[in-house]
């Protein structure tokens, strides 16, 4: 890197940046490693914020706007921190025809948020998935990391109650 551009430094002292640096080195600090690096950032920090994007972009020598364009093109990436718990409702075809819209409707109603949002108390994030590939178990829901199959509205509401209990 030319001397007139200083080497980018991580946004803060957090040790997790070492993981990010390792991914970037593995990608040869090249622009082509952008998506892989964003995956690492999201895995480590839960989301991609502006300082993180700036650091990754500068390190990989990717234009800032391109980094932002990539981060927002892919729906797997999120620019906002997720809640304490996440509830993912599968909207795959099999789940859809077996009642996923009713599940979503019930959660949106109970939590007062739309898919893609987090409750104001930061307790629960509600997400939808294109297809979890658990079509044999439709409709499927992921509570935090755990997949549940053949979910009913009542069971879902019950589960959410445990999370939202003060």
């Amino acid at each position, binding site marked *: 890197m030319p001397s007139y551009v200083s080497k980018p430094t991580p946004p803060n002292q957090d040790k997790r940046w070492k993981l990010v640096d390792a991914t970037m080195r593995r990608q040869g600090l090249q*622009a*082509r*490693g*952008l*998506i*892989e690096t*964003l*995956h690492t950032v999201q895995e480590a920090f839960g989301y991609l914020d502006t300082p993180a994007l700036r650091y990754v972009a500068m390190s990989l020598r*990717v234009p800032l706007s*391109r980094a932002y*364009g*990539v981060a927002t*093109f*892919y*729906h*797997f*990436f999120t620019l906002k921190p997720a809640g304490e718990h996440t509830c993912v409702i599968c*909207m*795959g*075809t*099999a789940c*859809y*025809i*077996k009642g996923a819209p009713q599940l979503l409707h019930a959660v949106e109603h109970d939590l007062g948020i739309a898919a893609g949002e987090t409750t104001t108390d930061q307790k629960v994030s509600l997400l939808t*998935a*294109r*297809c*979890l*590939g*658990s*079509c*044999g*178990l*439709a409709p*499927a829901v992921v509570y935090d990391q*755990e*997949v*549940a*199959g053949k979910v009913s509205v009542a069971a879902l509401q019950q589960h959410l109650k445990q999370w939202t209990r003060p």
Partner: protein
Amino acid sequence: MTPEELEQIAETERAAQSQFQQRVHVCVAAGCMSCHSQSVKDALDQEVGRRGTKESCRVKGVGCMGLCSEGPLVSTSTGVLYKQVAAGDAAEILDSLEGPAVARLVCRTDVPFFQRQQKIVLENSGVIDPDRIEDYIAAEGYTALIKALTEMAPREVVEQVTKSGLRGRGGAGYPTGLKWSTVAKSVGTQKYVICNADEGDPGAFMDRSVLESDPHRVLEGMLIAAYAVGASEGYIYVRAEYPLAIKRLRNAIRQAERAGLLGANICGTRFSLRLDVRLGAGAFVCGEETALIASVEGKRGTPRPRPPYPAMEGLFGQPTLINNVETYANIAPIIRKGGEWYAQIGTEKSKGTKVFALAGSVQNTGLVEVPMGISLREMVFEIGGGIPEGRKFKAVQTGGPSGGCLPESCLDMPVDYESLARAGSIMGSGGMIVMDQTSCMVDVAKYFMDFCMTESCGKCIPCRVGTYQMHRILTAISTMSATKQDMSMLEELCDLLKHTSLCGLGQSAPNPVVSTLRSFGEEYRAHIDDHKCPAGVCGQQENGEQG
């Protein structure tokens, strides 16, 4: 690794396996894992330990056994398949290895769901431990690679693939041999092989299952392909939503590298291949090959016009071969047994078998591999076991958002590329969703249009704005507020998107609408003329006003 060394590993592994008089296989693919099959396996392990029978009884985690709706599935060396097994059933199952089967858990295997299948791609699924390369090698794994490297010129490999009649299993059905020979003939400083494992169709989980159940099979296919076309670098582009598949794939790559089956100078030849996993990040359009390439390059996954085709100018501007998981998984057996053997299976123009993810309103949902040319009726009513709860069949959807809904009159049609296309759908990657009288076809069309609208990359105008307008009209129809003009607009847009969109996503986005209009036009008319949804799915309009 030499052929002799490979044989040695296979021998050792087979000998080790034959020591066990009793074997219990527990499915640890994602379907059963989500019904807690890991705890079943742990319980079995514990029980074996408690009984002190570790020397004679082997509990093994294996890949998908197919009947996902009845999981967790467990099979035993006595030839019994158990369904919906819980951790508490461990002792009884172990008892049954020396006595009568546990009747309440038995899953019948003498039914069409199992009997009608013909397994090539899935031959190791549910049999071998996906986390152990030795198990794969013991099942003739990597012998096709060794055969290709030591006995065949790259040209001969391409010839066998061409002879097999294999066509791309990702959806479009382009002849695989032809693709390979184009890449082989292309000139570049570096060639690439890419495996498209960005299984994006909602309702399809074939590729995930193959990667979770038999990852080495895919690696072997890619290795043979790389050898045939002259590539020395490759990428497997997997959905980030498939963590288990990614884990097993990464593990398989490490094992293959350690065994000298991947990396530099494979098996002592001049052939080298470096493989890396690339994670998709939730963009359906990246199933389109030019978009996938952009994504592997770390860019926004937007497609570009073809030509130039990736076979000439692909990844980093170099000749690139892209096939999907199932296509690669077919390669090893083709090389092992010859293209002619493969070409005997299936129909005249659609050779071999196809894996389908059968889901929706059928008794048996899960993964099945059948010869091409089987009828839809057999798929739904024999293998699928028909429609549950005495409901009436309405349609079967194939090809996901690019496919169509086939009505009852199509049931006796053979399942092959041409027949499905003629009927207004496509083979697609293999999702097959059965719908009964409780599904509204307008609602289904709206569902897929919503999918296409959200997944449109936004680069070309017809797809970006056209899918929005079509979705608006379908929403109006399903809320009983559409007019006849809306219907003619919908048909105009179907025509526009099909002929002017930049890539396959936009060009095929109208398919679910066109196919439902063709076969279920009366449902659309009922919504518009009588303000009624025959299936009782669609509601009245809520007054939608902004601000």
